[in-house]
């Protein structure tokens, strides 16, 4: 590998050929500020349009300033990152952005988490010397995402996520010059578009231009309504990230504190979506086995591979883009919806509360869950199975509103019966987890033998597309895993073309799976955070005594008392769904 010698702020540094000035500087502790730039290491996600011009530096001998994020280091380069010329230019650029930005920082949804606000602070901007016309676009509210593109700074991160990573193609830069912004075609509302609500645009937006629909107010009203019994479910990925909102290191598991906080907020029962994840495995696993055996017996009507269906963004994605494949995914509802369905039937009966008086709140790492809970097929007589789906970030707001000092909370346990779960359910929160959980159960049911090992390392990792073959006691089962819809698209195109080798495929829309969901604490482009969350999830799994879904005693009981058997008629009615052609 060719090495390059250069100096940055008079410090010599040696880097590999191809390294940017930005990386070279950071390798010797010089943090050049950036705004539009974003790179998620090892995930093949990079946004460097070189557009914001905040990272400009002075290069000796060069006529103008160079953007550090997309200028390669060359031999003998002499870089200065904080000359008066650079600082003046950088500040002017930020002032210009601010001059075309609504001055509502105090009440902006992104306040405190805004990279533009941080930048203004970092550069010590105390006056905006420029004033004039501002962008005047209307706000757009959808079931999950709010677009306020007057706050768009054309960093293009959302465009990269929506097009290059997710291949959904809802967002594009439109217009030009001063009027250029990122928006859907014809500036249509998101809910008219093919948006999957994966929320990756929101996850990377540096400002308040893209935010989630805030449902905390509705939850607070429900909690204060004495006629309502309010129960809450928490998705597996939330516990691995919530701590970050309270200054705890990434990867800190806060399951117990989260339960404690929810209880203090006034939820009548604190349950776990993981319970429903175990239930999902039994339904989806059984469906897989049924289809597998029929297929092996030569039934031509049976289609393989079977695709997981836990991820609502993914479901909406194939409904728009691959409607002809809509009978391939498992018909099993997602854990959130299974939970809602069971809560408003089985559990409501148990505690003798009428459906209308039972409010189900879910805490999700996800924005698409807000949309999923609003799908009409998931309500009974207009009463939704899940009333409100809050994000991890919204939960943090609620906790703050509740004057709860999160860090010093004791660890508490979930309530029974919908709070018990196995390790298999916990790993639903990361890419590879759902299929690993399914394998643990399917193997034992299929072979009738106990698993020789429980950790399937071959299914784990961060590569966007992974495959593995699991030996089901002599029967090789080919498994594919994709996270990120762009990767999913590749697998679907293979299926369309008829040369998919897989029996089962797990798909999660967000990079890293739910740990990288659009509702999680902002990672600000730091991929390490996602990896730490993933490690936390696997350690929670390891710490569990029960690690196979079918061993969850409450699940067993649920079938005995209520559902009968997996894929029974009642299970079908309550736990399965159908898909629509939305092309």
């Amino acid at each position, binding site marked *: 590998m060719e090495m390059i010698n250069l100096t940055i702020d008079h410090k010599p540094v040696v880097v590999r050929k191809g390294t940017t000035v930005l990386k070279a500087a950071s390798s010797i502790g010089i943090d050049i500020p950036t705004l539009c730039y974003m790179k998620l290491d090892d995930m093949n996600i990079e946004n460097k*349009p*070189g*557009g*914001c*011009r*905040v990272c*400009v530096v002075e290069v000796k001998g060069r006529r*103008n*300033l160079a*953007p550090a994020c*997309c*200028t*390669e280091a060359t031999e003998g380069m002499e870089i200065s990152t904080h000359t008066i*010329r650079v600082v*003046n*230019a950088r500040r*002017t*650029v930020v002032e*210009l*952005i601010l*001059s*075309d930005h609504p001055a509502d920082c105090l009440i902006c949804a992104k306040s405190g988490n805004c990279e533009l606000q941080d930048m203004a602070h970092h550069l010590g901007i105390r006056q905006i*010397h*420029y*004033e*004039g*016309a501002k962008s005047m676009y209307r706000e757009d509210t959808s079931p999950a995402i709010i677009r306020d593109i007057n706050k768009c*700074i*054309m960093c293009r991160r959302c465009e990269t996520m929506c097009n290059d990573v997710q291949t959904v193609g809802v967002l594009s*830069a439109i*217009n*030009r*010059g*001063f*009027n*250029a912004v990122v928006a859907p075609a014809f500036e249509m509302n998101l809910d008219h578009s093919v948006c999957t609500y994966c929320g990756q645009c929101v996850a990377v937006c540096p400002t308040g231009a893209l935010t989630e629909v805030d449902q905390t107010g509705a939850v607070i009203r429900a909690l204060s309504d004495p006629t309502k019994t309010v129960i809450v479910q928490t998705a597996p990925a939330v516990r691995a990230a919530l701590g970050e909102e309270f200054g705890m290191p990434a990867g800190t598991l806060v399951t117990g504190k989260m339960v404690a906080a929810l209880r203090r907020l006034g939820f009548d029962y604190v349950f776990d979506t993981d319970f429903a994840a175990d239930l999902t495995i039994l339904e989806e696993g059984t469906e897989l086995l049924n289809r597998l055996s029929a297929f092996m017996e030569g039934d031509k009507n049976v289609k393989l591979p079977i695709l997981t269906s836990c991820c609502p963004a993914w479901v909406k994605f194939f409904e728009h883009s691959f409607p002809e494949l809509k009978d391939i995914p498992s018909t099993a509802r997602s854990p959130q919806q299974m939970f809602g369905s069971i809560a408003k039937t089985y559990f409501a009966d148990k505690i003798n509360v009428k459906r209308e008086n039972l409010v189900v709140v879910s805490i999700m790492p996800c924005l698409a869950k807000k949309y999923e809970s609003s799908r009409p097929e998931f309500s009974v007589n207009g009463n939704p199975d899940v009333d409100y789906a809050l994000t991890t970030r919204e939960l943090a707001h609620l906790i703050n509103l509740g004057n709860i000092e999160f860090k010093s909370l004791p660890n508490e346990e979930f309530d029974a019966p919908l709070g018990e779960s196995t390790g298999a359910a916990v790993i639903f929160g990361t890419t590879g987890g759902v299929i690993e959980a399914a394998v643990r159960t399917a193997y034992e049911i299929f072979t009738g033998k106990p698993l020789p090992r429980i950790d399937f390392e071959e299914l784990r990792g961060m590569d966007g597309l992974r495959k593995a073959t699991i030996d089901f006691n002599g029967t090789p089962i080919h498994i594919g895993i994709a996270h990120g819809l762009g990767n999913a698209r590749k697998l679907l195109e293979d299926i369309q073309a008829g040369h998919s080798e897989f029996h089962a495929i797990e798909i999660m829309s967000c990079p890293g799976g739910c740990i990288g969901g659009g509702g999680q604490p902002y990672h600000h482009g730091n991929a390490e955070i996602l990896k730490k969350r993933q490690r936390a999830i696997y350690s929670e799994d390891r710490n569990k005594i029960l690690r196979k879904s079918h061993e969850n005693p409450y699940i067993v009981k649920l079938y005995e008392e209520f559902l009968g058997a997996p894929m029974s008629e009642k299970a079908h009615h309550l736990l399965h769904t159908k898909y629509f052609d939305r092309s």
Partner: protein
Amino acid sequence: MAEYNMHILVCGGTGCKASESELIKSNFQHRLNEFGLSDEIQVVLTGCFGFCEKGPIVKILPDNTFYTQVTPEDVTEIVNEHIIKGRKVERLLYRDPETHELVGDSKGMDFYKKQIRIALRNCGFINPENIEEYIGRDGYAALGTCLSEKTPDEVIEMIKDSGLRGRGGGGFPTGLKWQLTRKSVSDQKYVVCNADEGDPGAFMDRSILEGDPHSVLEAMAICGYCVGADKGLVYIRAEYPLAIERLKIAINQAREYGLLGDDILGTGFNFDVEIRYGAGAFVCGEETALIHSMEGKRGEPTVKPPFPAEKGYNGKPTNVNNVETFANIPVIINKGPEWFASIGTEKSKGTKVFALAGKINNVGLIEVPMGITLREIIYDIGGGIKDGREFKAVQTGGPSGGCLTKSFLDTPIDYDNLVAAGSMMGSGGMIVLDDTDCMVAIAKFYLEFTLDESCGKCTPCRIGNKRLHEILEKITEGNGKVEDLDRLRLLSNVIKDTSLCGLGQTSPNPVLSTLDHFYDEYLAHVTTASCPAGQCKALMHYSIDPDKCTGCTLCFRNCPVGAISGERRAPHYIDQSLCIKCGVCVAKCKFDAVLIG
């Protein structure tokens, strides 16, 4: 094919076409037919003669008579008098503006005397729709020589020795560019001709494509041979329908003659050319933006490096040159690099085509040797300032350039001198301004253009130029402050320093250059709220001199907004609250009674 004794060349450039030169051509044919002379006299529609001010142009050869402002109705007279009777039609001859003498022969016109035509060598000379005429003028000989007798490296050396620099504006050495693309290793490379001429007031590329499309095709093939590309693309403005048409004909003819396509001239070299259309985005003149546009995307530029020579169209090495640059190539090969290098200045060789426009008598397209002075261009070729007014400045380089004042009249024009003078060569627009042009308004005009054409990708160009424009607007409306002038300069410098592409990096030039040379004019706007040139409407004030007004009511009747009142035969009065400062009253008044202040 019949040989003709006489040729009538009718200008088919866009300017002349707009004045019905096609009808002139067909009228000639009809009349000649009537006299049974069609076999002896050929009527040819040619490319632009350059002397657009006096178009449509008709030139009769071999006696080299140069008729100006010919109308279709004049044809009968020309045929009857000149062709049949041998008498020139005097009233259509060019009259020297200084001596007022008739000039029958284009050789005798100052407009052509100081020009050296290399890139425009065939414009107004051959029928651009006939490849044989091009071949007859050494056409494709350069390609033949290169393919049969020279290695690509030898050809590149020739281009380097000639000192040819990119004519699109930047002035990058052409030979070096070719060498960079040649060095890139790839299974596929491309040659792109940038014909997305967008400078307002520059139209040389269009004229070359309309008048001599084969010279560009030949040069592209030579370039392809040198860099190792077998595919060429011409990226051309969709607003140039005639150039597109001629180019299409030329490509088809070249294919038919085996000068494009496979195994050209039996040398085993393959090269073909396709046309891609621009769609009205000035920024696409920038190479990387142009390439994105050709790929069917928004024409947004990307950071260089990587240069197109390494990673261009479809990610493959791509050599991009503009039309005028290409048009020079065959001549350099045919006449030798030494010949080419003997023209021009030390660092700028050859000639440059300028589009001369604005307040000048001879608006048109001229090709002059590098190193010529502004004075020669404006007074000798351009025939001086229109209406005898005073020369104020000349704007070169379009929205990326700046203004050159009187003190630069004797500066030899080349790339480096123009940059040193705070302007640039640009693609060759040359707008002459007189004392009635307000320099603040001119700066604002160019900025408006940039604002319209900015792609919006980078902050300084997207928002910075908007703010610059707003400050200028404030100033021209009389609301500016002295501090604004400092702010203008400060912001301009940051925009230059931080913008992503050439468009933004040069967009403040018109502002900086006018600030440098006409600071007093800016100052007058902000301190006394007045416009010395009398152009900024908001700062003007129309009133009627009661001593001169006869009460004829002409102004009253013509005022579009009813701002003028007054009795017949009594002095009239303008209501300032209604006046829109349209100037109609000034134009209508026969007694010079309307005062502007």
